């Protein structure tokens, strides 16, 4: 059973890495981003193909099981990415405000009595 999952995961990982390379070529993600995602998928692949590798790391950090270690790391990564997304949205909101403001100042409605 586990072999089927491992093979499926391998195919999926290869697919994901190809996608990352494509996006890098298209300029949608930078060098750092591409490096992070390739590393991410390779790490996941190692963890799936050699499940014991996570246990070694977990024991080293004093966490009981390898799967727990993976879970904790995943949570940290997800929270970090969520936070980054939140900041990005705020930053986009400020850009929208600038555009809206410029438009408002360019089209002032006032009576001719004002100069």
């Amino acid at each position, binding site marked *: 059973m586990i072999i089927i999952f491992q093979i499926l995961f391998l195919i999926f990982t290869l697919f994901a890495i190809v996608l990352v390379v494509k996006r890098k070529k298209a300029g949608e993600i930078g060098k750092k981003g591409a490096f992070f995602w390739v590393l991410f998928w390779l790490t996941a692949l190692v963890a799936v193909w050699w499940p014991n590798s996570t246990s070694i790391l977990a024991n080293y950090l004093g966490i009981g099981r390898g799967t727990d270690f993976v879970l904790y790391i995943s949570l940290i990564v997800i929270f970090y990415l969520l936070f980054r997304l939140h900041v990005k949205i705020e930053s986009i909101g400020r850009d929208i405000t600038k555009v809206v403001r410029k438009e408002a100042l360019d089209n002032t*409605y006032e009576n001719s009595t004002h100069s």
Partner: protein
Amino acid sequence: MKIAIIPAYNEEKSLGSVVRSLLNHVDRVVVVDDGSKDKTAKVAFEEGAVVLRHKINRGQGAALQTGHEYARLHKVDYVLHFDGDGQFDAIDIVPAFEKIQSEQADILFGSRFLGKESNIPFIKKNLIFPIARVFNRWMTGIKLSDIHNGFRILNKRAFTEINIKQDRMAHATEIINQTRLNNLKFVEFPVKVMYREYGQGFSGGIKIISDLFTSKFVSK
């Protein structure tokens, strides 16, 4: 020239009388219609205000900053922040201008806690405000008797140096913070506030803290 800036979002009912009451005290009333869905802009224009329209709603802080940028483009000496919902009393305007001029201050903050009677809801007065005051003081390093009071007067130096980046309600804390960072001289002045609606409750406060925190990580 003295202008009043009124950020307005769906205030067609109260805005007309507010604009009328202000025109006696300032040279120009600038209403920033913040993407209202009602006739806010039309009412303001018909009452003789200059109207700047945000095509989409961006928040009170964004609207005030748009007003400041209008002031920078015109020969404005003082801007008055005033709410469009009728919670402030125009009677306070002339003495407030006298105060900021006689004290040679750069910015004047209206305060509900310097003697004048305001009908502040009980929980706000006794729970939310004390917490917010401590928080504001800790965030900004300036001790004020009131928090998040929308009545302010800024002179040219103040409205040029203060750049409101907080689009929503956290701008009130941001203005106090920039007052300190730019070494602006400030005074407080008692104003009367008539509560028509409850305004921001506790969740509003949490949102403000969250906005202030997030902005630490937003570049620009």
